């Protein structure tokens, strides 16, 4: 179980994260959602240990990690641009961590991982010969070889297109279930967040706007910000799609929703 207690992060006088407290049960997928600049990446880096906290605590399974350095926390991250090493091929990237810690995974485990992520036929390719989705999977495999306690993903889907996005989404879910791996995903796409995760953390201006299961967020949004910025987007998207598939479906709900939202704001 990962607990964040009154996290605060400021760059100089600019407060980016303000009093963030929440609990992530082991094995759950949590999405961090919010507009650009609201502090999503910063929160991820703080959990990882890359960025120092201003105040507050990060506790994992009862151990306070706040002042434990990044390398010793046992968390791992997949960056948005993957950060694969171009001088090594796909396979050497995947097993990079084994050079330093031979026992992180057994050969059989590595093999399973390769099959699970469908990478077998790409192992000897150079990084620049891989497609975006393949790079993504190599980066995830490389991280999983290290058996992290918490897996952090920064906008893992934003560099991918349509169909690949859906398949990676499914893979992330499978992995989290199979390894009982706590996974925290940054995204700015509400649809992605709500369809992928067990819980969604909505940030606005560095504060928690709501932290709840997707259903709760849809049916009981806690603030006008969530209604205006998150649900409105989803409504428009839904209506567009309905209209495409079934022209008899009126576009009324979103419109009326927006009007009520505007009235309540």
């Amino acid at each position, binding site marked *: 179980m990962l607990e964040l207690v009154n996290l605060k992060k400021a760059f100089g006088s600019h407060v980016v994260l303000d009093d963030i407290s929440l609990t992530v049960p082991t094995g759950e997928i949590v999405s961090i959602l919010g507009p650009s600049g609201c502090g999503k990446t910063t929160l991820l880096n703080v959990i*990882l240990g*890359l960025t*120092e906290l201003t105040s507050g605590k990060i506790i994992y399974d009862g151990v306070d990690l706040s002042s434990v350095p*990044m*390398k010793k926390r046992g*968390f*791992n*991250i997949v*960056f948005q*641009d*993957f*950060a*694969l*090493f*171009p*001088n090594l*091929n796909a396979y050497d990237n995947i097993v*990079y*961590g084994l*050079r*330093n*810690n031979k026992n992180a995974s057994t050969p059989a485990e590595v093999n399973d991982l390769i099959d699970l992520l469908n990478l077998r036929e790409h192992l*000897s*390719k*150079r990084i620049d*010969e891989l497609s975006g989705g393949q790079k993504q999977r190599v980066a995830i495999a*490389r*991280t999983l070889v*290290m058996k992290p306690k918490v897996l952090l993903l920064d906008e893992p889907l934003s560099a991918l297109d349509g169909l690949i996005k859906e398949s990676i989404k499914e893979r992330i879910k499978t992995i989290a279930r199979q390894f009982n791996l706590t996974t925290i995903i940054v995204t700015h796409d509400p649809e992605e967040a709500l369809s992928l995760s067990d819980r969604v953390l909505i940030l606005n201006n560095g504060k928690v706007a709501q932290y709840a299961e997707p259903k709760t967020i849809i049916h009981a949004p806690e603030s006008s910000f969530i209604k205006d910025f998150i649900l409105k987007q989803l409504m428009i998207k839904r209506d567009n799609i309905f209209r495409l598939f079934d022209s008899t479906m009126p576009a009324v709900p979103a419109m009326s929703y927006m009007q009520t939202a505007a009235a309540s704001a």
Partner: protein
Amino acid sequence: MQFLGRERPELKLSFLLCALFLALILAYPLFSILRLAFIGEQGFTLSYITDALTRDSFYTAFLNSFKVSALVALLATAIGFFAAYGLSFCAFKNKTRSLIEVVLLLPLFLPSITYGFAVIYSFGRQGLITRAIGQLPFSIYGFAGLVIAGVIYTLPPAFMIMQNSFAYVDRNFVTVSKVMGDGLLRQFYQTALRPTLGSLVSAFILAFFLNFTDFGIPTSIAGRYDVIATRLYATMMGAVPDFNNGSVIALSMLIPSIISVVILRRCSRLNFRYNKISKEPPAPNRLRDTCFGTFYALLSLLLIGVFAIIFIVPFVKSWPYQAYFTLDTIRRVFAENDIAGTYINSLGVAAASALCGTALCYLAGMVNARSKLPGWCKALMDIFAMVTNIVPGMVLGVGFLFAFSGTALANTFAILVLANVVHFFTTPYLMAQQAFSKMNAGFETTAALMGDTWFQTLRRVVIPNSFGTILQMFSYLFVNSMVTISAIVFLVGAYTQVTTSKIKELQYFEKFDAIFTLSVLIFITNVAVKLLIDGYGAYQRHRQNHSAK
């Protein structure tokens, strides 16, 4: 090291190392010059400045340098512009294209002091070119010689700047301009002159600066025509050295450099960049292609005509009277003068300078582009790069002389290496910095999460992914250390002669066969090193591409 914030100790250490080292070998020598220029027996004084400024010889030398450099810069920029223009807009075969480039860049592999002698030999009374076009109506010593040698010296860098600029000029512009009904002149302005205006100014300024601060050419060909470089040398190393006056002259050399840097910063804004490099070759045009073909032929003939003499003299009995092939001359030259010893010294100094310089620039680039050290640490590296860029070699040499004479460093090879490392710091530093800023920002964090120490990441990821740049840095430093004279001429001792300073010494004895032999050695070495390094880089890339399969 708390004041350096939260960063790996290795990077903090790299920063401290770079900063202290550069302070010692850059800031301290410059400070020594200031001290000699402003501090007399009774403390602070302006008397050395006023003293220097009341001497006519100072004004004459300064003005002469100014005149020569302005004319040189104008000519080199114009020639460089048309050379680059032709390559960009004419339909030449790729082979022709590379050949022209190679010929134009050839002078880079020779020391500037050699150009002077080559020009004397080619335009002198018995010279190859004099024979071809007849006696020149003026003496080659002095103004004319300085201008000719200066143009040869500054043409390669001017050409490179212009060529780089033309690479970004969209040739579709020509079509657009034609369609709009522009006349020829207007078309030329719109499609060639205006887009490269910023680079033209840059090329001019750079050529001016290079020529103003060069020592090799004036020492070989200026004769009694006084320029600032020879004035400084005479003041410092003459029969009655005057260090206070020398330091004032050295400071005066900084003035054009500082102005250059300010202008260069400004005119980078004049450039407009198209974001794609035009690939499709230009359409053939008989008249234009013939004109430029002739232009290149003449230019190449001139350059080769000047340089040919360097490769002829060592291999004939006695130029020009007994001009038949023999190895006697070269044998005699090797036997009489300590050519082999000097050459080995040079190789050692160049290799050591290249190694140390590459390491220093690499670390400094890393501090600047790949660390989370406080902003002032990164800015400090940039400031060092800017200052080393401003300070001419001669000024650096004078500073080193003041700062380190009497210390254990004096008259050692180490001081030559140190001088070269600061002298040529800027370019390899910028190469490293650029390579680092293009490199994925997540490498270090990712590797650290995989259990790497900083050194392991450096060895396994950072160095392999910047290997091409490292080779280029090394090659740049090596070639420049081989051909430089301006800083080290103040620092070589009796037992630490290198080829360029030896050439200067041989000049007193008028041993031109030995001078040209050394020049040939330098040239061959530089070309060999360049080819080897480029070849090795290509091989590495090839291997990396294929080992993956």
